[in-house]
């Protein structure tokens, strides 16, 4: 054998071995990757931000009242639907259904609650700007609780008057208020609302807002719980041995998550969401009304009397920066929806804003192939991940589940 042939053979084998080793063995993280990985851990989560729009946000008595209201099915048209009907505490406060079922069926997937106190915008399209303003929406939705604000005010008077008064002061006199009335109602419910004088409307709105504020005080206590991924990050940050915390496949998936998978474009920070809105080309559900996502929600949140700048907000001058600097929704907000936190994502199919995709594997295929959007423009570009890489990413997402025994 010629010397040169031996050299060629040795180098080819050596290169192949090096390439195999590179692909097969866990590699140390680069400084940039380490920084990014650490930024995703719960240890990087700041304390809960204040909600200046809700004076009782951190009041334990408000949280206690809020919890009672959250699970009270009397807050519905058929006495069967509470917040907790769709936001199930033992299921990450969601319901495992493509679209929520209240007194009817909604057009959107129930969202989990943990960590929403960190989010400047609530709902898939962010049409509410606080937990308390959000809580009011389903109460008056014809397909969720199916009630109205006058009914809710009477219900507080009948069942929660003392707890309410201790927190918010005496209830207004509701004797002259009809059983049902709301500006969001239909027929007689709307007519009865329009017949009220301004002080009556204001009194009802205030009780209604206070109900939201109490529920928000409870929801604020629902926080994300540590996962195996967080244990991995803690060890990484401390310079300790991380072996055995994640499987090799999960670690490969994490590397893809912060790298080639481009997941952290939108799923960043310790809650793994940027709390903004993105069109990712998710298909429309046949039979549902048209849904333009964030592009119409911007006007809704600006016009909402229960927003941070509204008369029922407790915020002072200088607060509400998110709303003040919200700006206008551009073309890129058509069919844009909020990236949900990926914490616990593997154990809560189906996925997307209307439950369009049944499994996490199919979600990853969606991002890998980047289909065109039904309206507006998808921000995605094909990722060209191979099946091994997709499987690794899916395995990693499983490591974001709360550690056993925690909600």
């Amino acid at each position, binding site marked *: 054998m010629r010397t*040169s042939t031996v*050299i*060629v053979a040795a*180098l*080819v084998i*050596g*290169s192949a071995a*090096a*390439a195999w080793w*590179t692909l097969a063995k866990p590699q140390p993280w680069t400084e*940039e*990757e380490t920084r*990014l990985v650490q*930024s995703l851990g719960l240890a990087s989560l700041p304390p809960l931000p204040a909600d200046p729009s809700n004076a009782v946000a951190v009041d334990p008595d408000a949280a206690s009242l809020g919890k009672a209201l959250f699970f009270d099915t009397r807050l519905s048209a058929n006495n069967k639907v509470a917040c907790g009907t769709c936001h199930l505490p033992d299921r990450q406060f969601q319901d495992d259904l493509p679209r929520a079922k209240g007194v009817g069926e909604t057009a959107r997937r129930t969202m989990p609650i943990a960590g929403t106190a960190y989010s*400047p915008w609530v709902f898939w399209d962010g049409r509410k700007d606080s937990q308390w303003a959000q809580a009011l929406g389903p109460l008056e939705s014809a397909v969720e609780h199916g009630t109205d604000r006058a009914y809710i005010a009477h219900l507080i008077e009948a069942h929660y008057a003392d707890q309410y008064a201790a927190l918010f002061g005496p209830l207004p006199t509701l004797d002259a208020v009809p059983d049902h009335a709301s500006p969001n109602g239909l027929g007689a419910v709307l007519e009865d609302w329009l017949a009220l004088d301004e002080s009556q409307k204001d009194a009802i709105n205030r009780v209604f807002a206070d109900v939201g504020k109490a529920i928000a005080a409870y929801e604020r206590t629902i926080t994300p719980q540590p996962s195996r991924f967080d244990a991995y990050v803690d060890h990484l940050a401390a310079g300790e041995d991380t072996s055995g915390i994640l499987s090799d496949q999960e670690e490969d998936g994490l590397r893809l998550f912060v*790298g*080639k998978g*481009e997941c*952290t*474009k*939108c799923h*960043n*920070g310790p809650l793994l969401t*940027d*709390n*903004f809105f993105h069109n990712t080309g998710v298909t429309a559900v046949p039979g549902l009304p048209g849904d333009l996502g964030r592009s119409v929600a911007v006007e809704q949140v600006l016009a909402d009397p229960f927003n941070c700048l509204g008369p029922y907000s407790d915020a002072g001058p200088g607060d509400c*920066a*998110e709303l*003040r*600097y*919200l*700006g*206008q929704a*551009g073309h*890129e907000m058509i069919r844009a929806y909020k990236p949900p936190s990926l914490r616990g994502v593997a154990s809560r199919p189906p996925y997307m804003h209307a439950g369009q995709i049944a499994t996490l594997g199919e979600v990853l295929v969606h991002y890998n192939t980047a289909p065109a959007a039904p309206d507006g423009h998808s*921000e995605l570009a094909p990722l060209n991940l191979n099946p091994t890489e997709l499987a690794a990413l899916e395995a990693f997402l499983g490591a974001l589940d709360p550690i056993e025994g925690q909600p």
Partner: protein
Amino acid sequence: MSNLITRRRLLWSVPVALLAVGGIAVAKMMQPPPADLDLSLAKPTEQGLYTASVEPGLSPITVGTMHGWVVQITTPDGRPVDQASITVDGGMPQHGHGLPTEPDVSADLGAGRYQVDGMKFNMPGWWVVNLSVDGPAGPDTVTFNLVL
């Protein structure tokens, strides 16, 4: 002999090429900003009409945190420019999207200093912030780069 060296060079190029391809793949994954990015926070405007400097109110700037910047506008020879009109926009050049907010001047602090509020960056990576300045010398623009 010289023939063998050429072959050796050729053979060495195999692992070198593999490393290079690997390096490009990693670089693409992390989408680094251009290596020669000007990260200075004080610079002349495009036409040289003013000098602009910015002081982010958050150091380091973190992803997703709303904060304010102080912008200072001076003439090229360092005299403060008062009563300038300043507008702010920006975005991520590698992703083709703008800022998640519409920042605005909230106060004229005097001495050519302006408070800009509503700054927020919702992704890690390379961001640009464009200031349009209209003052006594006329309109001009300046772009600052940030890497989060």
